[in-house]
């Protein structure tokens, strides 16, 4: 069960050291002091985040903390009201939104849905479906899928873009525990084999930590950043998640391996001091 500490393939510190030595170590995407407002209410304030190849970054935070907004900013779907977003030239992004609602009036098979992203052959579709473990669904109607099945299909579609960066908004939602474990294994394999950068959001604290290099706690602003283990010990994190954070203690990292602990500009996740 000790997923963080003893899984060498996803040791966050080792990995970032590898990546930094490569010429591609410049970030895939980087936000600088990004602020987004909805009707004058700030949804994100002064967010700095850089994502590199082969790195899995997890955004956690309560509902309304700006996780989805930040992912949409990274995907270019929302323009920042202040600050800047720099993307590597020619960056290819695969995006899985929190929920996809295809109107029932639009008849569509799974294979067709996958092919919407560009000209692809049948073999590509079959490969992508096999990769996410639902190769038997190619001819099914997208309207008959369960929530978990659709999440996998959406991920397969994103993978067909041959992305450099994968943006997954709550990918574990509606997926059972076994499915979640498979999902995080897949994410881990993708970043190892293809060097993908991955940004995902979650409010589930347990499984997500296992496959993550860096955790970013959001609450409108960045409250704390670091390796899963260091963040779990962070008072800001505990302030944000209370009881749930205490439960995480069972995954606590050996402090000796805890190199990567760095704080964001704020040490507390209290939203009120902004008003």
């Amino acid at each position: 069960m000790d997923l963080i500490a003893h899984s060498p393939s996803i040791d966050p510190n080792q990995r970032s050291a590898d990546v930094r030595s490569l010429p591609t170590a410049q970030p895939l995407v980087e936000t600088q002091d990004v602020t987004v407002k909805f009707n004058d209410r700030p949804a994100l304030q002064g967010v700095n985040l850089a994502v590199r190849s082969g790195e899995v970054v997890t955004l956690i935070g309560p509902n309304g903390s700006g996780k989805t907004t930040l992912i949409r900013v990274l995907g270019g779907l929302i323009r920042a009201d202040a600050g800047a977003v720099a993307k590597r030239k020619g960056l290819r992004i695969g995006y899985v939104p929190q929920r996809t609602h295809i109107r029932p009036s639009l008849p569509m098979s799974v294979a067709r849905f996958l092919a919407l992203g560009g000209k692809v052959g049948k073999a590509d579709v079959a490969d992508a479906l096999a990769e996410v473990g639902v190769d038997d669904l190619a001819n099914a109607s997208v309207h008959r899928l369960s929530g978990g099945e659709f999440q996998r299909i959406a991920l397969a579609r994103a993978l067909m873009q041959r992305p450099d960066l994968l943006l997954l908004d709550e990918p574990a939602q509606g997926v059972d525990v076994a499915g979640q474990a498979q999902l995080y294994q897949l994410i881990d394999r993708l970043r190892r084999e293809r060097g993908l950068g991955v940004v995902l959001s979650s409010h589930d604290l347990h499984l997500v930590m296992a496959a993550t290099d860096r955790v970013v706690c959001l609450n409108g602003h960045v409250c704390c950043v670091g390796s899963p283990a260091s963040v779990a010990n962070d008072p800001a994190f505990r302030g944000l998640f209370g009881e749930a954070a205490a439960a995480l203690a069972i995954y606590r990292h050996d402090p000796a391996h805890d190199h990567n602990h760095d704080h964001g500009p704020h040490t507390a996740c209290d939203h009120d001091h902004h008003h």
Partner: protein
Amino acid sequence: MLDTFILYALAAGVGVALVAAPLGCFVVWRGLAFFGDALAHSALLGLAFGIALGVAPGAAVLAFAVLFALALAGLERFGPLASDTLLGILAPSLLAAGMIAATLLPGARVDLLGALFGDVLAVGPVDLAWIYGGGLVVLASLAWLWRPLIAATADADVAAVEGIAVGRLNLALLLLLALTVALAVKVVGVLLIGALLVIPAATARSLARSPEGMAGTAAATGVLAVVLGLAASFAWDLPAGPAIVLAAALLFAFSLAASGRAQAA
């Protein structure tokens, strides 16, 4: 023996049905039925202005439809009212304005009944050239934009991240819809254009398993409705436009019954 005007009517009806079918599918997929109605209702105003200014009515209707399509494109971003509420205000207002403009013209030069319900039996070679020339433009554009349009219809956000210019595509779709409205006015009139867009597409839904299949089935349904409607119009001396729409509605009812039976079986 078939007279020329019957052949013209048939050719015009079939042409409009073929163009309206795929666009009607997008209207159904994207929930644009109200929008199509508002566009169609603006056509009466265009017709009246065209006659007042001495411009070809087809060109005036097209200009007005394009103008309204552009104006309505920004509608979703309009305060707390839902877009169907706004369209529910705009569509009848446009119709009322068109009606008043038409009656203000000296000498009652607008054939109101024809404008409202269509006058397909009065179609001439010039109208046919309009319908087939314009129709070809619409269908060629749709074929060219088909894949990205379907992608943007299924999930606009994912399509946008994948690099599709969703905003420009939406605008293109509205302009094609405006052109289709302008082509269809003569055949079914401003009040019934919406039906020609929506009913064949809705009929095709239960039979289709792919977007293309639905567009093709809608086209076949529309053509069949035109043939049946015109036949009924001749046999029983019915107004042609309404007869076509009723034929389409009957086909829809049959498709419901058929798919209900298929599900029960």
